[in-house]
C-alpha cells in the first residue's frame, strides 16, 4: 500500500525525496533509525539534523507562513511523515515542540504567543519541555498541585513591555522528556487555589532559564538522561503567558494529549515495520525460520505491523476526506504499544545471548534500545489502563470509574 494523493502532492513528495537523498548523509545518515518520542540517544546529532531540516524549510509544513511555516496542508504534512520515516531519518529531537506545543498554540494561543514562539520552534532555536505530570499526578492529571499566582507588580522578562504583571509558579513536575534541554516549559498549573480537579487549571508558558527553575535529569532504564524532574520555586512568567483562557487549562491539555496519542503514531509505525523486517532477517540468518513456534510468532509480528499501517491509513484517509476519524484512531495507541513490546521480546529472543551484550558505558544497539524503550509506550501519553478507560467510557459509553 502506498499513499498517493495526486500530482500536486507527488511533486512535493519528489522534492522531499530528493532533498532527503542529498542531505541525509554523513553523520546524519549514520544515525538513521535512531530516536523515538523518548529516546535521548545521539541528542546533539539529532538536534543538528533538526536544524538542517529547518534550513531546508521542512518543519511546520502545514503551519501558516506568517509564523515561519510553509502554509501547505494536512496532506503534505502526512506525506512528509511517511517519506521521512521511509527514509529512516533520525527521529526529530524537537518533536515535542513541533508536534504537540505548536499545534496547541496554533489552535489556542494568542496572536502574540504565536508570533513570539512559533518561529523559534521552527528555527530550532528554542527547545521545549512538556510539564504536565507531577509526582502525585500521573494518570490522574486533574490532581495537579503546582500552583501559579498573580503578582501584579512583577515584570518578568518573558512579558511583553506592558504585560501588567507576572505569574509566580511553585511546585514540581516530573518525567519531562528531554527536560534538561528545555529553554521553555509548557506547564499545567492550578491558577485557582481553591479549585478541585480539572476546574481552575491553566496552561502556562514558563522560561526554563531562570533561578526559580531547577531541572534535574532522571536516568531511565536504558541508562539515558532522557527525562527530568523540575522544581519550580517562585519561578516567574508573564501575565500574558497563559495559553487559552485562565482556568481552561484542562481543555488545552486534553487537546494536546489527543494529538500526542494520534499523530505521533504515524511515523512510529514505519519504524516498527523496519524492526519487523530486521527481525525476519535475523531469524533467517539464525536458521530459525523453520522453527514452527517461532515462525508463528514472526508472522504474528508481521501481521501486527501491517495492521498498524492500515489502521493509520484509515485515519489519515478520513482526515483527508474531512471526516471525523473513527474509533480506530483511539484504539491505535493501545494496539501499537502492546504489539511493539511483543515485537521487542521476540527480537530479543531471536538475538539470544548475543542480544545481551552491550557496549562500554551501557551503550545499547538499536534493537536493545528499541526493546527497552518500548516499555514506556504503554505508560506515556496515558497508560494502557487509562487508554482502556477512555475507550470504555468515551467510545463505548460505559459508566465512569469512580472518581473523587
Amino acid at each position, binding site marked *: *500500500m*502506498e499513499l*498517493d494523493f495526486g500530482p500536486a502532492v507527488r511533486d512535493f513528495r519528489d522534492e522531499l525525496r530528493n532533498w532527503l537523498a542529498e542531505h541525509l548523509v554523513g553523520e546524519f545518515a549514520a544515525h538513521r533509525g535512531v530516536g523515538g518520542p523518548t529516546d535521548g540517544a545521539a541528542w546533539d546529532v539529532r538536534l543538528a539534523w533538526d536544524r538542517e531540516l529547518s534550513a531546508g524549510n521542512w518543519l511546520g509544513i502545514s503551519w501558516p507562513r506568517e509564523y515561519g511555516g510553509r502554509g501547505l496542508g494536512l496532506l503534505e504534512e502526512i506525506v512528509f511523515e511517511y517519506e521521512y520515516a521511509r527514509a529512516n531519518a533520525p527521529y526529530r529531537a524537537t518533536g515535542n515542540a513541533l508536534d504537540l506545543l505548536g499545534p496547541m498554540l496554533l489552535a489556542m494561543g494568542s496572536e502574540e504567543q504565536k508570533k513570539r514562539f512559533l518561529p523559534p520552534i521552527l528555527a530550532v532555536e528554542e527547545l521545549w519541555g512538556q510539564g504536565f505530570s507531577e509526582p502525585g499526578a500521573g494518570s490522574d492529571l486533574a490532581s495537579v498541585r503546582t500552583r501559579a499566582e498573580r503578582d501584579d507588580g512583577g515584570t518578568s522578562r518573558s512579558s511583553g513591555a506592558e504585560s501588567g504583571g507576572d505569574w509566580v509558579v511553585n511546585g514540581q513536575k516530573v518525567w519531562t522528556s528531554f527536560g534538561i534541554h528545555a529553554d521553555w516549559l509548557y506547564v499545567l498549573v492550578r491558577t485557582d487555589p481553591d479549585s478541585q480537579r480539572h476546574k481552575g487549571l491553566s496552561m502556562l508558558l514558563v522560561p526554563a532559564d531562570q533561578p526559580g527553575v531547577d531541572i534535574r535529569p532522571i536516568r531511565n532504564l536504558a541508562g539515558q538522561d532522557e527525562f527530568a524532574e523540575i522544581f519550580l520555586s517562585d519561578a516567574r512568567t508573564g501575565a500574558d503567558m497563559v495559553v487559552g483562557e485562565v482556568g481552561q487549562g484542562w481543555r488545552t491539555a486534553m487537546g494536546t494529549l489527543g494529538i500526542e496519542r494520534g499523530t505521533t503514531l504515524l511515523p512510529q509505525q514505519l519504524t516498527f515495520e523496519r524492526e519487523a523486517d530486521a527481525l*525476519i532477517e535475523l*531469524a533467517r540468518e539464525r536458521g530459525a*525460520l523453520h522453527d514452527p513456534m517461532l*515462525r*508463528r510468532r*514472526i*508472522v*504474528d509480528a*508481521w*501481521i501486527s505491523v*501491517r*495492521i498498524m499501517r*492500515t*489502521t493509520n*491509513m*484509515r485515519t*489519515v*484517509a*478520513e482526515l483527508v*476526506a474531512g*471526516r471525523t476519524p*473513527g*474509533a*480506530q484512531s483511539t*484504539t*491505535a495507541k*493501545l*494496539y501499537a504499544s502492546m504489539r511493539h513490546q511483543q515485537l521487542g521480546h521476540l527480537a530479543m529472543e531471536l538475538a539470544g545471548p548475543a542480544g545481551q551484550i552491550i557496549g562500554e558505558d551501557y551503550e545499547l544497539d538499536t534493537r536493545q534500545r528499541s526493546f527497552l524503550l518500548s516499555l514506556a509506550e504503554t505508560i506515556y501519553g496515558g497508560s494502557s*489502563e487509562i*487508554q*482502556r*478507560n477512555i*475507550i*470504555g*467510557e468515551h*467510545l*463505548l*459509553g*460505559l*459508566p*465512569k*470509574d*469512580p472518581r473523587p
Partner: protein
Amino acid sequence: MDLTFGEEQDELRKVVRSFLARHSTEADVRRLAADPKGYDRVVWRRMATELGLQGIAIPEAYGGSGFGYAELGIVFEETGRALLCAPYFAIVALAAEALLRCADEAARLAYLPGIASGDTMATLALTEADGRWDEQGIRLNASKTAGSWRLTGAKTYVPDGHLSDLLLVAARTPSGVSLFAVESDAPGVTRTALPTLDQTRKQAQIDFSDTPARLLGTEGAAWPAIERTLATASVLLAAEQVGGAAAALDASVAYAKIREQYGRAIGSFQGIKHKCADMLVEIESARSAAYGGLWALDAGDEAEIAIAAALAQAFCSEAFTKVAGENIQVHGGIGFTWEHPAHLYLKRAKSSEVLLGTPSYHRELLATRLGI
C-alpha cells in the same frame, strides 16, 4: 486508492443494516437455524429485487450492478452483524467469484445472471473428507469418456450444498485440478445435509457417481483461479467476521450498562470495562485487516491480494472467536444459556474460523507468500 468509505457507501450500509434489522432478527435467526433449508425464500428474493445484494459486485455484463469489493465488504459486514441465515456467502463469495475467475466466458454468461437475480443457488464444492483447502486436498476424480467429463467421489463440508442447484466442483484430471459445473439434478448426484454445530450456516456432503459435468476453462489449469477465489472469499469472510464481532461487542456493552452487581453497573468495573475496550481494539484491528483486503481487491494488485487475504483470515478469524467468547463471559450465567444469542455468535465464529482453512493454515500461507 480510497482508504475510507464515502457517503454513498455509508448509505448502502445504512440501507442493508436496516433491512437486516427487520428481516434477520434474533427470532428469524433462531427459526432458520432450526429449519433444514436454513433460509427464508421471501427475504432472499427481496434481497435480490429490492437491494440487489446478490449481484452487487457482479459486472453489469452478467446481470449484476458492477460495484466494487468495498461495497460487497460492507454488505458482508452487515450480514455478519445480523447473523443472516442464507446461502449468501456460498453463492456470492464462493460460486460467483469462482465463475468470474474461471476463464470461461460462456459459463459466466450462462450462470451469473441467475445468481445476480437471486434465482440460482450455487456453491463451490472443494473440500473432501480431510477438510483441506489446499491444492493437494483435491482428489475427487474426473474422467473423460466418450468426449464428456464425469465425476465420481465425494465432496463434503460444502457450504449450503444442500440447496444449491449449481455446484462448482474442483476435481482432479490427469493434467491437474480442474473446475466443473454440475447441476444438482444431474444423474448420480446425492446431496446430504450435515447437521452442523453452527446452525446458522449449513453444510452438506455431495456424492457423485459417474455424474456428467461441464468443464470450466482449461483442463488442469483451474487452481490459480480457485486460489484467487479463495483469497477473495477470505477477505469477504473476514468482513463478515468483523460484523459478527461488532455485534457481540454491542451486546456486551449494552448489558454492561444495565446489569448491576455490588450496587454498580458492571461496566463501571475495570475488569469488565477493560475487557470491552480490548474487544474494541481487537475489532478495529480486524477491521483494518479486512478493509486492507477489500482495498487490495479493488486495486487489483495480485501480490497484495494474496498477502492481505491470508492476513485477514488469520487475524479476523481469531478476533471474532475471541470477542464472541468474551461476550459470553461478560454476560455471566445468562450468556451460557441456549436462550441467549451469545452462543449463536460463538458458534458462527467457530465455524467461520475453519470455513476456508484454519488461522494457522492462513498464517502459513502468509509466511509462504511473504517469502518467510
